[in-house]
């Protein structure tokens, strides 16, 4: 038995090494800019989905306002860059600080709300932010900011080709996935799952639900704001319509939902399936920006809610569950709380 256990553990490790190896070599395999771009966006959404997952997936608080933090990260670093000349490497820190302040503020307002009230409350705040940004001179209103192109400059986080961006976002994705995996196994993870199961009972057992939800929200916000800064430096152009629009923010929520909320693998699975699909739909039927990819998102969500409400991870679990179950506890950390049933 010991031996089988050891063997399977090594299999799992080999699997992770294989995927990581593929990702590290990815820019050498695909030299065209387009597949590289898709991979960068995919990894970015892995990070965003994973960040959303910390609060939304584990504690069941469906936030429809995570893009506020994304925009805050992007705007803060960009404005500091343009007005003070601060390199984005440092600019991410005030961005993250602002995002965590915003998270505490939103949390204080909205964490008394339950279920769909919370979702619409956060959405309302996000829409307010959107309208304010559209009309606020300080953030250049609807025009947004353009970052001047400097060619290669590591100091200002700008490069002419996509490789450095790729490796930055890959590092972020690996770190965030590892971090969420740690949270999953930590006491915080257990508390959050307890809150999701039954908040009143968790409270009566002495879990300070508000505090842990707030902590999860702040962590989520900080990670999201980092990604915002990355996005601003990658696209070199930010405006309220592209950052604060619900349409832009949709994949952040849909990806963990499709993959499986409250699991480490969920957002990875979701992003891997949805981002290339969306990109394909956009390039194939996308003439005139007709939003076919969002149509497909809608269809996928309805079908999933009907047939597989816990996400695609359930299918993977059913198919390969036995293999993973052989070594008990490890898999539950990987798949979330319902694994043993």
């Amino acid at each position, binding site marked *: 038995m010991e031996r089988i256990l050891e063997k399977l553990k090594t299999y799992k490790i080999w699997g992770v090494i294989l995927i990581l190896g593929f990702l590290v070599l990815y820019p050498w395999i695909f030299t065209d800019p387009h597949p590289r771009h898709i991979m960068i966006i995919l990894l970015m959404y892995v990070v965003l989905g994973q960040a959303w997952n910390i609060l939304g997936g584990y504690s069941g608080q469906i936030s429809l306002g995570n893009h506020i933090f994304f925009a805050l990260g992007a705007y803060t670093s960009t404005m500091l860059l343009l007005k003070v000349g601060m390199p984005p490497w440092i600019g991410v820190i005030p961005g993250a600080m602002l995002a965590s302040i915003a998270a505490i503020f939103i949390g204080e307002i909205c964490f008394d709300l339950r279920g*769909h009230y919370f979702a*619409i409350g956060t959405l309302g705040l996000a*829409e307010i932010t959107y309208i304010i940004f559209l009309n606020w001179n300080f953030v250049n209103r609807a025009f947004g900011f353009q970052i001047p192109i400097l060619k290669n400059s590591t100091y200002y986080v700008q490069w002419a080709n996509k490789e450095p961006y790729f490796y930055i976002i890959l590092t972020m994705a690996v770190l965030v996935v590892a971090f969420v995996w740690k949270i999953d196994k930590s006491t915080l993870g257990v508390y959050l799952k307890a809150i999701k199961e039954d908040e009143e009972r968790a409270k009566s057992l002495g879990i300070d639900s508000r505090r842990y939800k707030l902590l999860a929200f702040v962590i989520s916000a900080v990670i999201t704001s980092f990604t915002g800064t990355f996005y601003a430096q990658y696209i070199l152009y930010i405006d309220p319509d592209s950052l604060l629009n619900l349409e832009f923010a949709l994949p952040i929520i849909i990806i963990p939902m499709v993959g499986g909320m409250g699991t480490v693998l969920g957002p990875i699975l979701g992003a891997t399936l949805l981002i290339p699909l969306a990109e394909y739909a956009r390039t194939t039927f996308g003439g005139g920006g007709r939003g076919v990819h969002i149509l497909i998102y809608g269809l996928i969500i309805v079908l999933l809610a009907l047939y597989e409400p816990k996400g695609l991870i359930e299918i993977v679990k059913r198919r390969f569950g036995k293999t993973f179950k052989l070594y008990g506890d490890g898999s539950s950390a990987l798949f979330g709380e319902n694994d043993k049933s």
Partner: protein
Amino acid sequence: MGGIYALVAVGLSLIFGLMNIVNFAHGDYLMLAMYATFWANYLLGWDPLVTLPFVLFIWFFAGAATYKVVIRRILDAPMVAQMFCTFGLGLFLRYGAYFFWSADVRKVNDNLLSGILDLGNIYITKAELVAFFGSFAATALLFLFIKKTKLGKAIQATSQNKEAAMEMGIRTDKVNAIGWGIGIMCVGLGGVLLATYYPVHVYSGWMFSLISYISVALGGFGSFWGVYLGGMMIGVIENVLGTVFIPTFKMVFVYTTFIFILIYRPKGLFGKF
């Protein structure tokens, strides 16, 4: 505006009361009704008032069909799945419309309801007046229907206690389907009336989903006239505050009101549960 909000919100509240599901696709049915009015006017030359009975009829069955095909399966699903399901349905309808008709803003041509009434110093378009009284009349009719008829009483019973209603021999499944039908019919009526003076646009649906949700939250889930009043208040807040201060910020006022209500009166102004 308030009248339409109120009517649409009453439809949403009916559905919510019956099966505890928030229909985030609500406004998208309204958007489709507006498009139906537009196309009937544009292609067939029908007046919106001619289109109205057809829309009511079709929308009733569309609502019931939505229940039969989609909603019935998620009645006992976790709240998150229900939310995502109707949300996804809304996305599907909205971007379906977007795909076929693009994002152009359209307007229904002149019709029976065009023209402006002069009431002393107040000028009001006929269409808005009709929309206001039409939606009021519809809400009143719906109220009478629910309070007085047998079917309406069955709806009430089901929303109060599903199991007990089932035991009394009410076919709750059928009642739910009818509830959806009526809820969506309210939306269809709202859409046709709105299309007579309001630009037809793909995104208007989402705004109405949110506003009707906010109206229901403001009026209080489970209170019929409370919801109606909630919708009216949203209309007033939006237009009065929006006009007095800054028009672009009118939705900010609506959302702010909503958040304040949620914090200080989570049951809404007249809510029972």
